[in-house]
């Protein structure tokens, strides 16, 4: 019983990380069908917001509030200066965002140095939950990720903006005909996606080391989460991240970690083979 | 007696609980022209999708030259001689008219590709002055004709035309009708349409499809004068 609880909590931790990063990606990718290779860098920007807050004497909680703003600002900048000219050239977007990703990574390295930063856990210690001791911060991470998920779901489901977004996902041209300002939706979605990635960065930072290429490692996996889950809906991201996080954690208990990570990716490919529209299609 | 070119028996196609086709039966001989008429939503395009391999039927048989062909990969249908023109023009936008036809021609392994044949087809579809134009830059009607050209260049046995006049001007529609009439006899052709005037111009054996079944069939004049057809079809128009 204890083992299963741990397995579940560990899987939820990994899933939460993937969820927050993947959610931002899902919004950008699902809505605009753009592959944003700089998405990982927004995670990095979020993490460095925390580092900057740390250096300036601020707290984790302040960074958690600031990061989405910083992320959104960078997102708006990128959309206005670059992406909006490239909506009809998806391949150019890959090249341009890869360029941006290099620039952001190196820019961060020049500003903060190549060395990593370790951020102290904002919540220290462990807590007893259904009979097991589990780190408080991880529990916080899981709860936060789930509430971000829920908030996004509510926004998409019940607000005017959400309705517009869903319309655009369904049929961009039709949405434009119906008087939805798709350019504005694009901008908002891009900044929202970037903001979410930045929050993800803050949340991830206390688990490990903050480095200029932190975000790169999450890029491929979060793409997979989105694809496996199903492009264009939030439930898909949740399902995809739970599936990948769960599989990875489960395998980790039984086989060598390198093998299990490879196995997860191979399984993801198999899933894409048989369910190209994702496990939860839109 | 030799087998018919195409026979379908009791074709059914369900999407979940939605029964789009239930019991569609047609039979077509070599060189014959058949029009399938029906209001929107009658299942015409679904029926085409079934006999050209895009969908596997839920039940029933599609027999082409004596063989049941339901469920084969799409490209096999073309190789057996079934060619299809889609409702929305579907051509290779970045290739020129000539290149479009050449790519269509080499799909069939039985005929040797030749420039003469390409020019011949360009003549038939009336795009002589546009041979090196990229297909994406053609006018809407010209795209439709090019697509018919793609379908006939390999001399198929059966030509499936899905609303060949959709979105055309009156003038273009008339030209299309005469184009189809000129092909009559060379290939078996099935046309699906909801435009009565166009079908009148073709004046062929006609089947009315309604709620996924054969509702009426007969010569066009018979169909036209049928009061029930008027009610379900023309009454709505």
């Amino acid at each position, binding site marked *: 019983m204890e083992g299963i609880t741990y397995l579940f909590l560990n899987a939820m931790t990994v899933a939460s990380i993937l969820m927050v990063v993947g959610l931002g990606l899902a919004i950008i990718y699902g809505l605009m*069908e753009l*592959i944003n290779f700089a998405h990982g860098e927004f995670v990095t920007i979020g993490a460095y917001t925390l580092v900057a807050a740390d250096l300036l004497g601020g707290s984790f909680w302040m960074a958690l509030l600031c990061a989405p703003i910083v992320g959104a600002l960078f997102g708006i900048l990128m959309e206005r200066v670059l992406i909006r*000219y490239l909506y009809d*050239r*998806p*391949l*150019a977007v*890959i*090249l*341009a965002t*890869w*360029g*941006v990703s*290099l*620039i952001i990574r*190196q820019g961060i*390295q*020049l500003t903060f140095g190549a060395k990593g930063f370790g951020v102290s856990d904002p919540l220290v210690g462990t807590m007893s939950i259904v009979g097991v001791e589990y780190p408080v911060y991880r529990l916080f991470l899981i709860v936060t990720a789930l509430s971000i998920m829920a908030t996004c779901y509510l926004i998409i489901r019940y607000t005017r903006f959400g309705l517009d977004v869903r319309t655009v996902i369904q049929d961009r041209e039709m949405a434009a005909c119906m008087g939805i300002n798709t350019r504005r939706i694009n901008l908002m979605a891009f900044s929202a996606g970037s903001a979410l990635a930045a929050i993800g960065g803050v949340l991830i930072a206390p688990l490990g080391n903050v480095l200029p290429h932190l975000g790169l490692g999450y890029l*491929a996996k979060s793409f*997979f989460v989105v*694809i496996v889950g199903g492009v264009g809906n939030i439930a898909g991201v949740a399902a995809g991240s739970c599936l990948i996080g769960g599989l990875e954690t489960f395998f980790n208990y039984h086989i*060598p970690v*390198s*093998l299990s*990570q*490879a196995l997860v*990716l191979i399984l*993801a*490919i*198999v899933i*894409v*083979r048989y369910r*190209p529209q994702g496990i939860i299609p839109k | 007696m030799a087998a018919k070119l195409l026979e379908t028996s009791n074709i059914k196609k369900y999407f979940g609980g939605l029964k789009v086709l239930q019991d569609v039966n047609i039979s077509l001989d070599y060189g014959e022209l058949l029009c399938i008429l029906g209001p929107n939503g009658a299942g015409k395009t679904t029926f085409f999708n079934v006999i*050209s391999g895009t969908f596997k039927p839920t039940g029933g048989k599609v027999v082409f030259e004596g063989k049941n062909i339901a469920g084969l990969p*799409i*490209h096999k249908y*073309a*190789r057996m001689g079934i*060619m299809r023109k889609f409702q929305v023009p*579907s*051509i*290779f*936008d970045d*290739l*020129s008219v000539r*290149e479009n036809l*050449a*790519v*269509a021609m*080499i*799909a*069939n*392994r039985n005929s*040797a*590709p030749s420039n003469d044949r390409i020019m011949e087809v360009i003549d038939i579809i009336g795009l002589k002055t546009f*041979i090196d*134009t*990229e297909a994406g830059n053609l006018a809407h009607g010209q795209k439709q004709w090019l697509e018919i050209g*793609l379908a006939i260049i*390999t001399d198929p046995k059966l030509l499936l035309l899905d609303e060949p006049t959709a979105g055309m001007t009156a003038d273009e529609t008339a030209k299309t009708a005469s184009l189809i009439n000129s092909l009559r006899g060379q290939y078996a052709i099935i046309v699906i349409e909801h435009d009565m005037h166009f079908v009148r111009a073709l004046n062929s054996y006609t089947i009315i499809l309604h709620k996924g079944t054969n509702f009426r069939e007969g010569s066009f004049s018979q169909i036209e004068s049928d009061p029930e057809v008027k009610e379900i079809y023309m009454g709505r128009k």
Partner: protein
Amino acid sequence: MKWNPIIFRFKLPPTLKQLVDERIWLVAFIGLAGLLLAYPLWADGYSLNLVRDMLIFGIVALSLDWLWGKGGMLSFGHAAFFGIGAYSMAITSINLDWGFSSLLGLFASVAIPGIIALLIGYFLIFAGVRGAYFVIVTLAIGIVSQQAAISWVSVTGGDSGLLGIPPLGFTLGDHRFQLDNSLSLYYVVLTVALLSLLFLWQLSRGLYGNLLKGIENNEKRAQSLGHNTSLHLLIVMISSAMLAGLAGGLYASCTGFVAPDLLSLMLSTEIFVWVAVGGRGTLLGPFIGAFIIMRLQQVVSSISTGLWPLVIGAIFIIIVFVFPDGILPFIRKFVVRFKLLFEKSGVKHGR
């Protein structure tokens, strides 16, 4: 399945635009080939090795262009095929002590990536995986194969790679024929590069090129005309992987060394950039792109280590806006305009 060679033989009479294209291509090709053939006359050993390696990476870029530019499928894990080719060469020729083992290694470096591409491609392409999905799945394949190369220490030597790959050669009786000097290796690589370039160009300028373009344009249409599009794409993918593998094999035997980062995502993205910069779909462009970017990277990184990623990143963005189709098409656009200005020919022109 019946093989129909007509696809490769039949040709339409070219239009002016195509003629201009082909002429530019041929002029550039002959110029470049001539320059490279004569290059050893004045180059020192160091430069010769440098250009040789650039040529090898040019071949990899070519193989990606064949897949992406002609087949329409962008692989973001293309370094995996290159690296697998290099490892196949290394493992075969190090472990087999036999007169022909390095030749066998070269064969393995072509065959094994081909087989892997067959498996992956069968799984993906026949399932209808295209576009962005293909990009991401191949990206994952690259990551998995790099991790495999690091973890599978007993075979791959782990993170530090394998050293001591014998040079290409074979033993006949008591004689050993061996390619171990810079000059002969240079010419071997150059020959492979020029031949594969010419071959793929010849293949794609005719109807087969039109067919691939048509598949990229409107695959459903091509299918309903009777083309087995998945099979065509699979063949393109396999041949692309084999060419990348061959380049890997050559790289392994030229440098005598393989390491896991030859399969890395970093290298994959570099390859992608070479193709995008040179001009996707031009086959020759990727070579030019690889040369320019690699040279630029070396130069800038020797001047300032901190700046080169910034410079390279900025270059990508500039390319997207200034040369949207890459360098070679950019040049073409000018030549076409120039030609039309002076040749008031009656030939009809596309756009």
